[in-house]
């Protein structure tokens, strides 16, 4: 009798009816591309013609210094930019939450506005501002801060700095909002209790605010890391296709160029994409282990 009831629930028509559209969409847009990519990756492509190479694409990738260099750039940007941005967003959120009384909405808007700009538009803008005879150099020259124009876009070191600046500008406000929400979710009674116990502002920040914000920091870190791994628009446009002599080439841009610009080799591009997904997954797991589940 029990078994029949369970089976009957399994056959619940309306339940399946509601779930089917989502299943169909999943099947078409996620499952099918993944399966077909398994087919793509075992072949070497030249546009419409392909030949079977088995694991040849992965062997090629192991020897392709251009790809590893690009991936290295992703990690470099990650190490430089993500901590900078998270700390900045945190500090801004705390200042906004407790420091500024008037014009809070305006300041919040000012910092969040970059997050709604188009990636392409702001890359173009930064490129115009940062060219050798652009506004930033001219300003610094006229103020006497520098004697020679800085090669923001044609020196490998400065190009990396440019990327860090641009990405930080774009995403700090976005993360700041999450931290603001997190801060506002902290029960003010905890702060009152701490004040009664005589804790200084610094102690409060490090011993109370920060630990309670760990879930938000984790979220910020994981999304920023995965976002940095997929960096495409900035190196493509801001640094003219990967920076001076590939100094700011990123993995996603290299994959795109292999597929659509240089070679039409979709199999190789797919193989590289697998590696990126794998790395992103590993990083996410590591971060969740480190920062989550503190209990």
């Amino acid at each position: 009798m029990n078994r029949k009831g369970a089976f009957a629930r399994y056959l619940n028509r309306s339940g399946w009816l509601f779930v089917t559209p989502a299943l169909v969409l999943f099947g078409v847009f996620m499952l099918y591309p993944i399966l077909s990519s398994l087919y793509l990756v075992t072949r070497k492509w030249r546009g419409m013609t392909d030949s079977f190479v088995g694991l040849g694409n992965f062997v090629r990738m192991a020897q392709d210094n251009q790809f590893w260099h690009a991936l290295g750039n992703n990690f470099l940007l990650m190490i430089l930019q993500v901590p900078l941005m998270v700390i900045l967003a945190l500090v801004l959120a705390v200042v906004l939450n407790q420091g500024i009384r008037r014009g809070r909405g305006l300041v919040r808007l000012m910092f969040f506005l970059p997050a709604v700009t188009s990636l392409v538009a702001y890359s173009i803008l930064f490129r115009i501002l940062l060219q050798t005879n652009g506004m930033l150099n001219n300003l610094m020259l006229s103020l006497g801060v520098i004697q020679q124009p800085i090669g923001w876009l044609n020196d490998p070191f400065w190009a990396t700095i440019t990327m860090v600046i641009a990405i930080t500008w774009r995403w700090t406000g976005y993360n700041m909002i999450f931290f603001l929400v997190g801060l506002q979710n902290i029960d003010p009674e905890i702060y009152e209790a701490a004040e009664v116990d005589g804790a200084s502002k610094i102690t409060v920040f490090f011993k109370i605010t920060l630990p309670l914000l760990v879930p938000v920091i984790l979220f910020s870190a994981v999304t920023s890391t995965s976002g940095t791994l997929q960096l495409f628009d900035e190196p493509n446009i801001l640094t003219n296709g990967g920076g001076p002599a590939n100094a700011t080439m990123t993995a996603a841009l290299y994959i795109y160029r292999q597929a659509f610009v240089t070679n039409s080799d979709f199999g190789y591009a797919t193989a590289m994409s697998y590696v990126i997904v794998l790395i992103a997954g590993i990083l996410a797991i590591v971060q969740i282990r480190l920062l989550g589940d503190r209990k």
Partner: protein
Amino acid sequence: MKRTLSFVMTVALLLSTAALGFAAPSKVTVWCWDPNFNGASMKAAAAVYNKTHTDVTIEIVDIPQQIEAKIEAGLQAGGKGLPDIALFQDFIIEKFVQNYPKAFVDLKAAGIDYSQFAAYKVGPMTAGNSVYGVPFDTGSTGLWLRADYIKAAGLNPDSYMKSMKWSEVIKLGETVKAKTGKPLITYQSDNFDMLRILVQSTGGQFFKPDGSLNLRSDAFKKSLAAFKEMNDKGMLYLAEGWSNWIDSINNDQAAGFLNAIWMVGTIKSKPENKGKWMVVPTPLIDVAGAKAASNNGGSSWYVFNSAPNKAGAIDFLKSVWASKDPAALSFYNDILKGQGAMGTYMPSRAGSNYTVKDDFFYKNQAVFADFSKWMEQVPVLKYTPNYSAMRDAVANATLKYFQGKIASIDDTIAAAEKEYKEVMGN
């Protein structure tokens, strides 16, 4: 009664709208970039065609960025979403012809006479017995110089209006830099077009007949050496990308540049520079067989096999772009004057604008006559389908060489070959 009447009326309305659909004009869709140059030229062609074919609408769609990636995606989808005609740059078409052999219509079989087009344009679009496109503009190059800066350096611009060796140009650059502080030439560092213009002028090839890289050739080494000498003497201005380079020209960051005729629109967009620009032949590299002419860019029109209106597209191209009809020839004459677009259809070179003096230039130089003359001497360059990868590898290695990160020319060539090998996966 009412019901029947309304039913009859509905059917009548439906039928009449269907009839409208039947009599609708046919459409030809064209994709190209740069609405002021390519788009405007195509518009002029459409106007000529519409005089005799009033029922055809030529729709020109501007694709400002990475048109090749869009087209590639369309070709992968079996031609869905692709237009009838698209513009391709000459250096990229061999890759498409090789990778997508059935993508384009064989226009030679459709009746176009290719003996009337410049041979160096027909080369890249030929595969076996088939020829696929309609050649459009030439990328005939020259050295564009600002006569006013030469004067400011205490020299007479007239004495430079001739074919020079690069050694003479370098002397000129040193003087201009010393007296005015301006570099003589601005160039683009993300693709190093200027280096490849030099190599092509020597008649050198980037690829050997078997398809392998040919960077160890005398032509390449001498061209790179000349370019490096200019860099070390401070007579070059480095612009990081296309828009930065255009900006550097418009803002007088340097006293000139080495590039093709299609820059004339950009130059003329600054009316305050009237009378200041002059164009001299591409300087000579010290290699036997070097010519005072080269090519950079240039594109051609191609018809897709998946085109919705293939017949209409082919007829349009044949009637306006490949016809000795007076209306067609005057079209070529008009776009030369209007857009600075010099076609490569030989019969059109008799047009009046080809020899007219241009009062925008220093001493009313007849620039189009000069470019047309130089176009005849352009050494043919074999692009091959791997041209883009070579271009990027050479550009990256050369930039590192210029910035002191690579020590010698041989090391630069080795670095370029290494990057090329890794990207191509051989």
